[in-house]
Every structure is written in C-alpha cells, then in structure tokens.
C-alpha cells in the first residue's frame, strides 16, 4: 500500500498568485518530495529578441519580461550592448540609473514584505505596506512618466532628465517611507505574528546555500556574501554608500530582516544620489552595430540577473540569453521545502519572493 500522498500547491491556489505548481509528496504532514513546474507562461522572449526585433529595440522588449524589475532587465541588456559597442556614458546617466535601480528594489521588497504579512494572516499590515509603497510608485511616475512600464533606460544613457522641482518632492516621499520602514523593523522583530511565527521555518543553512547556488536575499539571509553590486565596477555603487546586508539564521524571519535592512540602505543610497547628482548630459549618441559576445550581470531585487548577448555586426543579434534570479533559485527552493510541514509551504514560498513571469520568460 502506498504510504505517501501527493498534494499540489498551485497553479491556482488562494495563497499563491503566481502561475507555478509545486507537487509535494507528503508523509502525514511532512514534505518528502518536491517537483516544480514553472512553464505555464512561457512567452519565448529569447527567440523574439533574435528573430523579430533589431538590437536597439530589444531594451524595450526585455523590459516586458517582468513588471516588477523592468528597469533591471532593460538596464542589464543595455549595459551589455554598450559593452559591445565600446560606448562610454556620462556619469550623470550612471547615477540616474542607480537611482532607478534602487527605487525598483525598494518597491519590489515592499511588495514581498506585504505578501509575507498576508501569508502570516496579518492583513492589516499588508494593506499598510501596500499603501506606503504608493509613495515610491509616485516617485517613479514623477521621474519616468509612467507608473509601471518605465522605459527609462536607452542605449547611450537615460530618456529623461530629473527636473529640479521634482527633487524636493522625491526627497519628501523618501523621508516618509524611511520613517515607515523604521516602524516595520519594529513590527517584524517584536510582533509575534511576524517574528516568532517565522523563526526556524524554511531554513537554508550556509553550506546548502553554497551547494545550491542560492542568490539574492535568500542567500544573504543564510550568511552567503553574494551581491552583484559588490562585484561590478560598471556603476559606481561604492560611491553612493552601498553596504552588503547579511544575516546568519537563514529562516523566513532572517529573509524579512535582510530585506528591511536593504530597504534602509537603498533609501540612503537614493538620498545620497539626489544630494550629489553631478551636472552634465544624460545621453550620448552611440553609433555602430554590436559584434562579439558580452556577459553582463546586475543585482535585481530577487538576486543576480544575467544577460549573455552575441552579435555578428548586423542589426539582428545572434543570441540573447536571459538568466533570471528566480529561475536559478528553483533547486534551492525545492531543497528548502524538504522536511518541512505542508502547512508552512505558502508562507515559505512567499518569503522566496518568486517571480514566475521572469522565470518563464
């Protein structure tokens, strides 16, 4: 007689809004086997990039891979093309790119924290964080002219300058959010629904994080010092006050605290950029066609994002390879579920902050 039962989580589940299915093999309450199915929304972006669009339009195509980290996708692609063309962009454009990248991270982390609250049954906190996230969305609309699809990065610089009158408004909003984040820190460490409930759940040890190549906040919560912002010199991250945030516990609570610490650090970076933004042009005209191969990495809100492009001197590229953070974390996710309770699975999954539209690009 069979001793185990199979329970699916997703692809339609009340606590999981993403099109992903985990098939759990359970022995009583314990999960002993995991199988992940992620290909529900595969759109063939990689093929479209090499067959339908010229290289200068692809920056706008790959921004549609994911709505949350649209800036990171278009920036990574653009940086890779600029590397192939040997282009130099102005320092003002570089700082504006960091500003947008960090705003992207702030609103994405806030979304993840709110979902973690929702999965703990703390709906009021979910509403509060989502309400405060509007301040960041307002800033993004002020800078780029749109709330969700920003289309801000272009080959050679950025599309819009920062208006002096909007700087004051941005600073005010960032200050409000900073105060709120201090409040969340208090809630996430002292409120039992959010701290004690999450301690020791969904553990990933440091050795396993190395073994399964975990990235992003998931790895940093286990004490693995991996952050692409620390490993690239393409953008001047160390000049704007970047500090790596790590934790040693490796459970859901540690992931929340790492995200909160990153929020504070990102807000500080944004403020530093606004205070010391250099003068100059935001756009340099770049000529030529990409030839050769380039690999570019950036730290998306969920971890390392990699683009590999190969050009042959014509307007169409030969290959665009997109490696998204959630995609390479799936083996680590499956490992964390093993040995845990089935009832914890939705909360553990929300703490990973999975982005399925990135994964099945």
């Amino acid at each position, binding site marked *: 007689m069979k001793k185990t039962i199979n329970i699916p989580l997703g692809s339609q589940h009340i606590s999981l809004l993403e099109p992903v299915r985990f098939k759990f093999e359970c022995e009583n309450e314990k999960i002993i086997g995991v199988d992940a199915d992620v290909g529900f929304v595969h759109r063939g972006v990689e093929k479209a990039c090499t067959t339908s*669009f010229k290289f*200068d*339009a692809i920056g*706008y*195509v790959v921004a549609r891979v994911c709505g949350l980290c649209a800036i990171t996708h278009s920036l990574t692609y653009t940086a890779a093309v600029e590397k192939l063309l040997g282009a130099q962009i102005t320092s003002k454009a570089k700082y504006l790119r960091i500003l947008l990248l960090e705003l992207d991270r702030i609103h994405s982390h806030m979304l993840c924290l709110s979902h973690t609250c929702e999965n703990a049954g703390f709906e009021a906190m979910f*509403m509060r964080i989502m*309400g405060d996230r*509007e301040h960041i969305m307002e800033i993004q*609309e*002020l800078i*780029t*002219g*749109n709330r969700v*699809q920003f*289309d801000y990065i*272009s080959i050679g610089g950025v*599309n*819009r300058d920062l*208006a002096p009158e*909007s700087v004051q408004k941005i600073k005010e909003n960032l200050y409000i959010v900073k105060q709120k984040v201090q409040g969340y820190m208090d809630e996430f460490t002292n409120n039992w629904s959010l701290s004690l409930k999450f301690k020791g759940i969904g553990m990933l040890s440091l050795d396993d994080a190395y073994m399964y190549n975990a990235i992003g906040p998931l790895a940093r919560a286990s004490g693995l010092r991996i952050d692409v912002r620390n490993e690239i010199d393409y953008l001047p991250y160390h000049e704007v006050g970047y500090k790596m945030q790590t934790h040693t516990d490796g459970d859901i609570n540690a992931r929340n605290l790492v995200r909160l610490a990153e929020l504070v650090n990102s807000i500080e970076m944004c403020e530093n950029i606004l205070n010391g933004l250099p003068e100059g042009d935001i756009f340099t005209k770049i000529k030529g066609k990409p030839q050769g191969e380039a690999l570019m990495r950036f730290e998306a809100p969920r971890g390392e994002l990699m683009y590999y492009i190969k050009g042959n001197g014509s307007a169409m590229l030969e290959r665009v390879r997109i490696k998204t953070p959630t995609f390479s974390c799936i083996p680590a996710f499956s490992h964390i579920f093993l040995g845990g309770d089935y009832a914890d699975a939705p909360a553990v999954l929300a703490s990973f902050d999975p982005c399925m539209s990135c994964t099945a690009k």
Partner: protein
Amino acid sequence: MFTSFIKALANLFKKPQTIDYPVTPIAKDKEYRGLIEYGEESCIYCLKCEHACPPGAILFVPVENPSTNEKNKKGLAYNYNPYLCIYCGECVRACPKPEEALWQSNKKPDVAVKSDNVNSGWFELEKQHKEQL
C-alpha cells in the same frame, strides 16, 4: 491595550488612503508620458520615426490624395496606432525636427470601441505598408 484603544478611535476619523475616483479625478503629472502628436506641415518625410519605433506603431502608407507638403514626394500619409504605442519616445528622439513635427504630449488615448476598427484597420495598413516596400 490603552494605546491600541486610542489608535482605534483615531483611525475612525482618519482620511482614507484611497481616493473617491469618479468624483475626484486622479491627479495627473504634467510630465506624464502620453500620446505622440504629429505636425504635418513641418514633417520632412525622412521616415526616421518609422524605423526607430520598437513596436511599429508609426506607419507611412501611400494614399491617393496626399497632403500638399512639397517634401512628400512619394505621396505618403502618417498613421499612428496609440494602442500599439509603448510611449517610449524613441521616435521623438529620432526626429530631426522635434517639437514641430513630432512631440510627446501628456494626453491619454480614448478607450477604443468596436467601431474604431482598431485591429483589422491597422492590419490592413500593415499589409499596404509591406506591399509598398
């Protein structure tokens, strides 16, 4: 216990986070990225905007009675699909005479209805454009 009671009372008189949408309009930023607008008199028909547009929302298609602009030697007419446009502004950057011939406004497109013939009308134009090449 006591503080939570006071907070609960105070929350009763707080303004809501949301706005009363149809009555109060949504505040629109003046820098909002909106429709691309076109000035036919200044256009020199270089077709740079058509080549630059990532989704192909600008098409120049030959017509029977073209405009009297002397630069328009091939008898083309400008067509713009606001529902295909991603409002990135690449066309305005490519335009040799921005602000006069092509510029970005902060207006939103109207909601399309069936009589606008958005899809099949545009596919027809795309077909004509291919034939012309």
